[in-house]
């Protein structure tokens, strides 16, 4: 369950943000889950609520899947990540470290491993609402 570590990161940065900006309370946070990292939404959700419970926190958490966008540096082709032919272990590696997609997949058009991850990499704290 390495989702737990990421959930912890989300909660601590929301708390840090609210402290820095002197929020009285957090009402809602929106978290983007980049497709590449293949976060198990249920596990992540569970971890979030457990961590919040343990800290006595109560606010709404909105989870949004974010489609990935990859762009080839050689031929400019753009595409979205697809677990396609990857085996379990390869998927798992990308789940831990999204950049490792470079080790296992190339550009679908020219095969180059030199591509950029433009969107949908991993866990991102999109917004915090509070007052």
């Amino acid at each position, binding site marked *: 369950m390495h989702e737990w570590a990421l959930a*912890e990161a989300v909660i601590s940065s929301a708390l840090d943000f609210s402290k820095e900006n002197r929020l009285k309370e957090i009402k809602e946070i929106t978290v983007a889950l980049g497709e590449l990292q293949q976060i198990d939404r249920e596990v992540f959700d569970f971890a979030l609520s457990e961590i919040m419970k343990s800290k006595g926190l109560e606010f709404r958490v909105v989870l949004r899947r974010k489609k990935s966008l990859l762009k080839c540096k050689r031929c400019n082709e753009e595409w979205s990540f697809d677990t396609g032919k990857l085996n379990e272990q390869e998927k798992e590696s990308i789940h831990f470290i999204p950049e490792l997609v470079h080790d296992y997949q190339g550009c679908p058009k020219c095969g180059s491993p030199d591509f950029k991850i433009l969107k949908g990499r991993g866990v991102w704290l999109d917004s915090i609402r509070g007052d």
Partner: protein
Amino acid sequence: MDPRTCVIKKRIEGIKRIIAVAGGKGGIGKSLVSSVMALNLSNMGYRVGLLDLDFSGPSAHLILGTGRSTQPREEKGVIPPTVCGIKFFSLVFYSGKKPSPLRGIDISNIIKEILCITRWGELDVLVIDMPPGMGDAILDPISLMDAEFLVVTTPSLVSVGTVSKFLSFLEESGTPSLGVLENMRIKETSRNFFGADFLGSIKLDLDLEKALGKPEKLMQTKFSSELREIMEKVF
């Protein structure tokens, strides 16, 4: 907002000292120095971790001879496996057979991701085997850790120039430096370019190669005993 940045501090809370073994160049012995240092510290009774961040040329696992079955455990994050008493983490646990060349932004992201998910627990020392180079991509995420830098060089003039640059870079950025270790010394007396920053030398040790992958043998090399003398100045 990147949620990883603020949890990194928390992940390294239980670590007393972080030593980044660096040097502008490749092939000068950074991996040997960091791995053998970790082995010695563990032997001396320190709780020690070793983190291999040289993604394009990971070698600590080869030096320590970790087997295929050595894998991190998942528990509210990633728990590094223990190798010869050392908590060891390397990207080789996850990377493919032929690692791809990575760009700066990817390297930063990987380092942050590793620091965010790895749970080291309580350590006296974490040794980091750094990649060659001194770009922001590498040093920015490391700066989140308050590491002390140990700079490795060889007697070659080419390497010495790089180290001088490295030292002034560390000074300008206010990063603590432990000093310079000269590795692969050939002549008995060589010049000391670094004044007070100079920690000592390790000679070229032709028996080293045979000991790679065999921790007990590594500990008995001249390399190891010379490194221990230098370590006394640091620990």
